[in-house]
């Protein structure tokens, strides 16, 4: 990464740009209270845009997971605003959040989190049905998504019979179920060897470029930067820099 163009998203107002899918405004998060309080995140502002791959980097404990958890509507911020679908969703409770998450986010994890008892096809099908109980032809969609991530011939395999890279592809297919515009991953390549990690990241890059999805990935691996449009550096709970990175691919 060279010639980083650093700027702060906080210069923008709360009103989202036209291609904005989600927006965090002045987010703060403090865990616990009193003398046990930990300020995990302060004053974080970030815009998530269609077609962009955003990498989030920073030392352990800097607040990366907290940041994407708040973005993914899994965690309520202590202060600031979360905008999704053009609406401020900050104060919404557990009645509204599952639906918003299902419509807007797909998640991928370091540990894949696939049901070991279910085949690739069943894992994806079940997720589609869970997100939307009225989904039509969930199985057909699951097949299509597994094809898309290159797992076509192995849809009837159990996770135990798949390699790490293949498992992560199944998890990505699952995240794509219901066609959410934003994919969020917390170190999704950390458990994979370099070659596999790069090919998984390449897949995520492709998904962003071809379908206009936003991909937000936490990583420790600077080699992934070449797939990114932006790199967000987090340190001590502050967004230190947001660097445009695509220019050097």
């Amino acid at each position, binding site marked *: 990464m060279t010639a980083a163009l650093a700027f702060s998203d906080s210069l923008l107002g709360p009103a989202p740009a036209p291609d904005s899918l989600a927006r965090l405004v002045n987010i703060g998060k403090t865990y616990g209270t009193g003398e046990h309080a930990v300020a995990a995140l302060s004053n974080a502002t970030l815009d998530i845009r269609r077609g962009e791959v955003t990498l989030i980097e920073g030392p352990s404990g800097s607040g990366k997971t907290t940041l994407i958890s708040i973005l993914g509507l899994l965690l309520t911020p202590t202060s600031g605003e979360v905008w999704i679908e053009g609406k401020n969703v900050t104060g919404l409770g557990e009645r509204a959040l599952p639906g918003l998450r299902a419509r807007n986010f797909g*998640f991928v994890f370091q540990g894949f989190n696939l049901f070991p*008892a279910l085949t690739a096809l*069943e894992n994806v099908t*079940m997720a589609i049905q869970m*997100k939307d109980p009225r989904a039509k032809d969930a199985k057909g969609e699951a097949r299509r998504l597994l094809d898309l991530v290159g797992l076509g011939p192995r849809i009837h395999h159990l996770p135990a019979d798949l390699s790490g890279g293949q498992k992560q592809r199944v998890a990505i297919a699952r995240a794509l179920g*219901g066609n959410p515009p934003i994919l969020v991953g917390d170190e999704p390549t950390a458990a994979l060897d370099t070659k596999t990690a790069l090919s998984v990241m390449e897949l995520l890059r492709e998904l962003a470029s071809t379908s206009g999805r936003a991909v937000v990935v936490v990583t420790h691996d600077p080699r992934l930067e070449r797939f990114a449009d932006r790199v967000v550096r987090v340190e001590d709970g502050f967004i230190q820099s947001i660097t445009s990175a695509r220019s050097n691919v």
Partner: protein
Amino acid sequence: MWTLARKLLLHDRLRFAVAIAGVSVSVMLVLVQVGLYFGFMDTASAVIDASRADIWVGKKSNDSFEFATPLDERSYYKVASVPGVERAERVLINFAQFKLANGGDLGAQIVGVDNQPGYKPMLAPWNVIAGDARRLTEPGAIAVDRSEYPKLGIDRVGHVTEVSGVRAEVVALTSGIRSFTTSPIVFTDIRTARSFMPQLGTESVTYVLVKVAPGQRVADVQARINALPHLAAYTRSEMSSRTRSYWSSRTGVGAGFFTTAVLGIIVGFVVVGQILYSGTLQYIREYGTLKAMGARNSAVVKVILSQAMISAALGFAVGAPLAMGMRAAMKGANLTVALSPELYAVTFVITAVMCAFAALLSIVKVLRLDPASVFKS
């Protein structure tokens, strides 16, 4: 939901087998214990239930069917002349010494019935498998049950013995007529019965059985008989349930069987609860992932409840045949396990409720599960 539940449950075969074993043992215990209880109760009221009387009349002070104070012939005539009574018959029930082949004596419950010429008696031995119950009118003729062979040593018609020192000849063998008190039931004519119990005199009667005239309401006739001094009239089903509850509360037999049945339920509850909970813990990340993806709590709870219901259904499917096997095995020991469709139905519901409650801990666990936990390593 069902597919996921079934696959999660079946994935660990050993754990699944333990869950099904737990439920089926619990189902079997409930069926066998409650079935034994009803079997005993059926035995307690068998003679009453087998009668064709509309009303049983006895002395007001009676509380037990077997140990009843005798009436006399006048009571019988009074009852017979109550308006609305079509016909009345006498029954004499008491204990007498039955002489065994080895020279010993055994207390037997003598049931003397009223064989009136031209009428089939309202109470008579049933399930006759050998001989002829109509010969009971002959002096000294008795009918005994084949299942009492180990006690009485009688397995054929024509066997001659003594009851209270009076000559008695077996003219009929029955099958499956047993008493709650475990004393063999010996059917005979009321005249022979009186000769077996000289101490009661020649006019004693324990019960008067009543057939109500056509067009008359049983309750009306019952009320008229109850208006007579010292007499209490019960419909056949009232008499039956009085006897059942007498023996049930008197012996505490109900408490014993139900305690074991409840223990069975507790065992099933604990086993299924443990299995479901360990499965829930094993898949907690995946459940968290479902919640993070936007699955509603209700959907995740359904996955767990479905596993509980599958365990209940399969446990019942295994436990019910086990109970039937136990019933067959216990028949050899002269124990009746009364398994009715109603008992199966109630047991199935109890099993489902038990499994649902066993799932509660798991349900609370996934309800409390913070979807943000998926990103915690």
